[in-house]
């Protein structure tokens, strides 16, 4: 809301600097945005929160200033001569939708002369950023900016049968608004009509046909109240907003309607001549009196944490326009004024007293009791995952939760269910909620390639959004994913290290899976304890082409919620062995299809009780190993907890291992 310094001074004595005023207003709720000089006046832009529509007019702002500065507020008296025939004799108002328009007041002015506005009026509007149109329209805008009540002036003679019908739009109806654009209306919209057609979109914009023109002689002045929600929906649906709709959406002062209507008529006759018809044609439900509110003074201390004298609190409320109904030593009962619809409850009064008294009195150094704040399991696990991946050389990425269909389909391993989508005009393309983090990371890797970083190693830890269970919210899971130029074994090592870092006493089983996301033979499912926890592999040519990557890369994605369950957050010491171990190395030549896991498990089951660990060293193919065979080179550690093992014992285990591998795996010892 831009207010004029000179204008404000009409209502309240301001013998302080502009800076001082805006500071005081800022500290009591009207946040200062900017100040600028306009033609000998000063335009002050104040941010008005949505609960204070009364401050969308100069009198409202002046009232705040008067309260803050301890001055009197002077509201102009409205008086003008009237003439017969009375308004109710020359026009009629019919409201068929009181739910959308609870009050409608029409006054008639005869014999106006349309012309340019006088300087004082033009300047007031200019300071507030409003263009001058003509003397009559300018007055309606002036009163809007004065008291935050939108008004509309119709060319009375262009209204069919000289009457007003407030109703819902009929199917197929349309209107050309004063901006000369045509709008199709919907039956849920409230319109102002005459006997035959729509003449205004209620509270949003007037019609072109009935607007005030140079030839207008007689006026119908509308002052009304419209349902805020209906105004908002209509404005949105039509893509229209105006100073009027902005105020109707926030609520106007129903008790002030008549004053605004009369004020408008008074000023029009002053600047455009004419006489006001006697009385008013109106359909208006009586304005219900505001209910009184009790403030217990003790609540001030309880909520604000400071002592405020009851007398001071009472004084603040009365200055704000609340009327005292009753008071005693511990409470005061007050009735809020009609323009303060935001005041309904005791807590509202606590805030009023607090903000006018000043929050600078609230101390910033009280004693706040201590309390325990344990770190939760998820927090610890996520922190460990991040640390481990960063130490492994990965950069953490943060990508959008939204993807387009192409991205969603590119890597779709977790769900084939219909993706969740948002419905919003700003997201026609990327409207889907992702089901995997991998596509976003591949896109980020591509972006890095285009910037010359060919080896970006990225990870992300974030939610994926899978379709809802039959009842309840969608299935949101925390995943983490990696993209990397490293080879499959290196990347698998990174994932294994994560399990180590989490002290997850479980084995990660990777089994080959053929999927379009992965290159043939180079994709795997990851299981822990028989449960699927992730996918891992080298991107297929299709994926490389889709993301326009220079080369294939490796990706992995794991369900962190599942891994977290296996994490041991407080590891327990296992006794560090004090007896020496025996190391043995073996190279076994086995048939090509045999997996290392088969060799490992054959070794473990044949080794006897003293095999402590087994470590893969090398895989070799080529001369002198015959085609279709490969050599696996590994070391084994043997140890007994209570004694040093003899060579003979270890030899015996080794022999058993070799024997088992020969029999079970067609293995042959490589000399």
């Amino acid at each position: 809301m831009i207010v004029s310094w000179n204008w404000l001074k009409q209502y309240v004595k301001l013998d302080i600097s502009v800076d001082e005023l805006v500071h005081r207003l800022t500290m009591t709720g009207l946040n200062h945005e900017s100040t600028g000089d306009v033609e000998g006046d000063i335009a002050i832009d104040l941010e008005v929160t949505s609960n204070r529509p009364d401050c969308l007019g100069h009198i409202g702002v002046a009232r705040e200033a008067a309260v803050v500065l301890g001055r009197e507020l002077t509201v102009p008296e409205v008086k003008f001569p009237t003439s017969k025939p009375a308004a109710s004799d020359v026009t009629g108002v019919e409201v068929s939708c009181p739910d959308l328009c609870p009050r409608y007041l029409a006054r008639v002015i005869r014999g106006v002369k349309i012309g340019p506005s006088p300087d004082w009026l033009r300047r007031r509007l200019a300071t507030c950023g409003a263009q001058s149109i003509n003397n009559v329209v300018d007055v309606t805008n002036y009163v809007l900016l004065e008291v935050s009540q939108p008004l509309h002036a119709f060319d009375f003679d262009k209204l069919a049968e000289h009457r007003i019908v407030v109703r819902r739009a009929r199917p197929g109806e349309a209107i050309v608004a004063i901006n000369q654009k045509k709008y199709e209306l919907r039956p849920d919209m409230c319109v102002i009509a005459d006997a035959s057609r729509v003449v205004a979109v209620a509270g949003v914009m007037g019609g072109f046909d009935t607007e005030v023109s140079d030839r207008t002689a007689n006026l119908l002045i509308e002052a009304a109240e419209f349902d805020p929600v209906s105004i908002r929906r209509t404005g949105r649906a039509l893509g229209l907003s105006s100073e009027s709709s902005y105020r109707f959406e926030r609520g106007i002062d129903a008790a002030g309607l008549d004053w605004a209507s009369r004020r408008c008529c008074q000023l029009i006759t002053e600047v455009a001549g004419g006489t006001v018809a006697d009385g008013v044609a109106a359909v208006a439900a009586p304005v219900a009196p505001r209910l009184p509110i009790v403030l217990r003074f003790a609540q001030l201390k309880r909520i604000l944490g400071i002592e405020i004298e009851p007398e001071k609190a009472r004084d603040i409320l009365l200055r704000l326009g609340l009327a005292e109904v009753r008071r005693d030593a511990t409470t005061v009962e007050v009735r809020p004024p009609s323009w303060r619809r935001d005041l309904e409850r005791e807590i509202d009064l606590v805030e009023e007293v607090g903000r006018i008294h000043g929050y600078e009195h609230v101390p910033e150094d009280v004693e706040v009791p201590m309390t325990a704040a344990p770190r939760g399991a998820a927090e610890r696990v996520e922190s460990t995952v991040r640390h481990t991946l960063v130490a492994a050389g990965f950069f953490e990425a943060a990508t959008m939760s939204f993807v387009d269909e192409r991205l969603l389909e590119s890597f779709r391993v977790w769900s084939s269910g219909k993706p969740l989508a948002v419905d919003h005009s700003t997201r026609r393309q990327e409207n889907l909620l992702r089901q995997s983090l991998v596509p976003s990371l591949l896109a980020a890797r591509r972006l890095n390639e285009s910037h010359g970083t060919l080896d970006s190693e990225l990870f992300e830890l974030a939610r994926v959004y899978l379709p809802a269970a039959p009842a309840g919210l969608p299935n949101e899971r925390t995943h983490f994913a990696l993209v990397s130029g490293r080879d499959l074994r290196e990347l698998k090592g990174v994932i294994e290290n994560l399990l180590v870092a989490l002290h997850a006493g479980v084995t990660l089983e990777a089994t080959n899976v053929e999927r379009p996301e992965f290159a043939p033979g180079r994709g795997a499912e990851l299981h822990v304890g028989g449960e699927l926890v992730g996918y891992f592999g080298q991107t297929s040519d299709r994926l490389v082409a889709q993301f326009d990557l220079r080369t294939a890369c490796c990706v992995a994605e794991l369900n962190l919620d599942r891994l977290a369950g296996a994490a041991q957050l407080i590891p327990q010491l296992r006794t560090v062995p004090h007896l020496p171990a025996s190391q043995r190395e073996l190279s076994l030549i086995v048939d090509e299809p045999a997996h290392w896991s088969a060799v490992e498990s054959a070794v473990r089951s044949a080794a006897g009780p003293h095999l402590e660990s087994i470590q893969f060293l090398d895989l070799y193919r080529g001369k002198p190993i015959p085609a279709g065979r490969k050599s696996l080179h590994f070391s084994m550690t043997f140890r007994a907890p209570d004694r040093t093992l003899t060579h003979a014992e270890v030899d015996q285990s080794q022999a058993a291992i070799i024997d088992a591998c020969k029999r079970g795996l067609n293995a042959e010892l490589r000399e």
Partner: protein
Amino acid sequence: MDANELNKALADLEVLAREATEAFAAASSADDVEKSRIRFLGQKHGRIEEFEAFFKNLPKEGKKAFGMRFNEVKTALKQAHEQSVVRVRPEARVGATSSVALHSSAAVRFDFSLPGLRPRLGRKHPLTQTAEELVDIFGRFGFTLATGPEIEDERHNFEALNIPLAHPARDPADNFYVDDKTLLRSQTSTVQIREMEKQPPPVRVVAIGRVYRPDAIDATHSCMFHQIEGLYVDKKVTLADLKTVLRLFAASYLGHDVHIRFRPSFFPFTEPSVEVDMSWDLRGGKWIELGGAGMVDPNVFRAVGYDPEIYSGFAFGLGIERMCMRRHGINDIRQFYENDVRFLEQF
């Protein structure tokens, strides 16, 4: 020279890189290692030499495109070679040695001016770093981390937060609705409600996470951003506790004393509501906006079954992006979501 040729050379280079890396990794004797070295890195007929020649004949712009990757591959292969040399030494086999011993017999002095061989080092995203710091600080003040879903129902995103159906904040145009009843949360205040539903007072939590609003995207606005939200409910919590906690927070975050000022504001779920500013110099110092806060509205307490006559509480919300941008001199919010490594590696 056309782009196809360059792309093919780059692809061939990757093949070479993979084969050579595998060969060095698979080498099990000094002989193997040496054979692989001659085959890939040899000065006369090593396969890398073909690319060297190709590179020399490239025009200037091709040199730039190809050279970076070529040098990376060359360096990586040299490292792979060095590692395999160390690995196949007899004393390295059992893993009982350190590489220090391997080089100690060298006759020449080590050139300490050579750059170190740096292991790869990643970074946490700057938003994570900021978020973790905030959670850590509030943790010291007794606030436990809480989480909640990003896709929320209307009760948690609106109704229980004292935002009735007619409120403009519920307009579908201002939210990302997933269906009639659920939407992407527009604020982390939803977690307040979930925490209070879960447990009786006292409650002292912070929630952190992604929130979504259909703002037009520019240097300071994104349709997705991160918030941290704090809630403290107990029998005697006042606005003075809020001011104190926020002052201690700001002082901890900045590392020096600051002052806090409240400007009246409006949020449906708090009353009184305030905008919070901080300043480190009360004599004419600038006030910097920290976030929004207030005392929990009695209607919010009623919605979760707390008695507002017995309990009071405060809530505050801060924008992670904004704090991170100010802290590190970042001037475009979009950089957070691009994930350019040249950006990420600076934090």
